[in-house]
């Protein structure tokens, strides 16, 4: 329990780092599509969109932010992770109501920062408490590449990287990240294993 508390603290501290990362990726995906989508709308659809916009603006800012983050996080996830999440949700829906509520209560009891860490998806969400140190100073244009590389790593390699991230002083983390990305994708797990346990 104590360890979980510490992990919560770490994740809470890095929640700020997480949001712009997810957001930047989502914006990169769809930045150019909005004007063309607007132009393709007919007058009635445009009117409906206008009404939807008015209703959206009427929502409280906290609610809007929640929906925005959920959508941006979803946009950033690869399809296989989306599929795992959809399957988990279906399984959860199939459970008895009491068990559904128990699971929901366990999630809601997590620290807010820890909950936000799960926005990175099932793969990186679990590793986020240990990997956040590598993300803290990543330039925006490198984040997408790094997220993709991290998702592609096997679980043991992510655990190794988490250990390395904690061992490496802050001023050397840039170099570690660049070295990792410089490795061929297939060799990264081995390279990490060697770095952790020479």
């Amino acid at each position, binding site marked *: 329990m104590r360890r979980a508390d510490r*992990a919560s603290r770490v994740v809470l501290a890095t929640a*700020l780092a997480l949001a712009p990362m997810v957001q930047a990726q989502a914006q990169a995906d769809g930045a150019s599509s*909005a004007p063309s989508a607007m132009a393709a709308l007919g007058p009635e659809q445009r009117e409906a969109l206008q009404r939807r916009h008015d209703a959206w603006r009427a929502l409280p800012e906290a609610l809007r932010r929640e929906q925005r983050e959920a*959508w941006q996080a979803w946009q950033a996830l690869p399809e296989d992770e989306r599929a795992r*999440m959809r399957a988990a949700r279906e399984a959860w829906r199939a459970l008895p109501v009491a068990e559904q509520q128990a699971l929901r209560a366990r999630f809601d009891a997590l620290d807010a920062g820890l909950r936000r860490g799960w926005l990175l998806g099932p793969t990186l969400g679990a590793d986020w408490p240990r990997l*956040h140190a590598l993300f803290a100073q990543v330039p925006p244009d490198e984040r997408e590449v790094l997220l993709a590389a991290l998702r592609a790593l096997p679980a043991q390699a992510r655990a190794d990287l988490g250990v390395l991230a904690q061992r490496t002083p802050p001023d050397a983390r840039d170099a570690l990240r660049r070295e990792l990305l410089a490795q061929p994708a297939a060799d990264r797990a081995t390279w990490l294993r060697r770095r952790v346990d020479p």
Partner: protein
Amino acid sequence: MNDPSAAQAALSAFLRGVERRGAVFAEWQGGDAEVGDVALAASLRGFGEVAAEVPFAEWPRRFWAMLLAAPGLRGAPPGRGAGAPGAAPAHLARLGSGPRAALLLRLVAGLAEAEAAAVLGIGRPSYRLALQRALPHRDDGQPDPEAWRAMSEAAQAALRGLPGERLERIARLRDGRRPKPRPVAPTSNAPARPRWPWPASWAVVLLTGLALAATWWWPWPSAPDDASVPRIQTQALPPAAPPAGRYDPALALQTDRDLELLLAQARGETDAIGDPAFDAWLVHALEDTSDAEPVALPPTLDLDEAVPEQFDAPR
């Protein structure tokens, strides 16, 4: 002079000898008898304190220099009370402070030329020149012996005619006692204090009181008794002109940061999203319902080291 009582007696004798001359000198040099007396008393007291350290031969020079240095004797022109018995001759009023001192050191203090020059701190030739300039002259530039004699006689008369009570007053001033107030001279030209401020003040107080009372009892125009007439008159404003421009809702939509999300909602793409954080957590929670912690942390990891990372978070 080693005997203290003898020294004290010599000092008293010296001071008695110079006090009359000092009184006339200070009055004529400073132009005011009262100021002169105060300056003389201070000099007498000050000289008494330093006399023991000064050789006897130096006493006159030291005393007159001390008196001349008194603040009250600097620069004020003589002439107040001119014409009265014992008053300064009118000629002195035309002289500057320095030449007047040169003249008075000779005429009233009765010092020799060398001592007078030493009192002024100048050489004898300079003193002689100053004295020559200070002496009365006739219109053709020649010295006027008669005027000089008249001044000399006036000085002698002033020295002789100095009233005894004035010397007592100087003695009291010297000893630090409060002097008796001098009788107000009928010829005093001090401006009489105006008598009108007090009655005027009382008149203002009275008028203010009356004005205050009038605010209660003055017959103000009473409000209309008719209750149907509102006390506050109102008038409707003219209808507002149409604004020059409005914020275009279409523009607001196009520039909204959530336009992408709204378009996705309109296309129904957001229905499947649900709660991504919960769903991602569910993946792990359902795989291992006994432990919500997805991966056991390696034992070498000290998470406390990572806490400062919050300060590295990008903005």
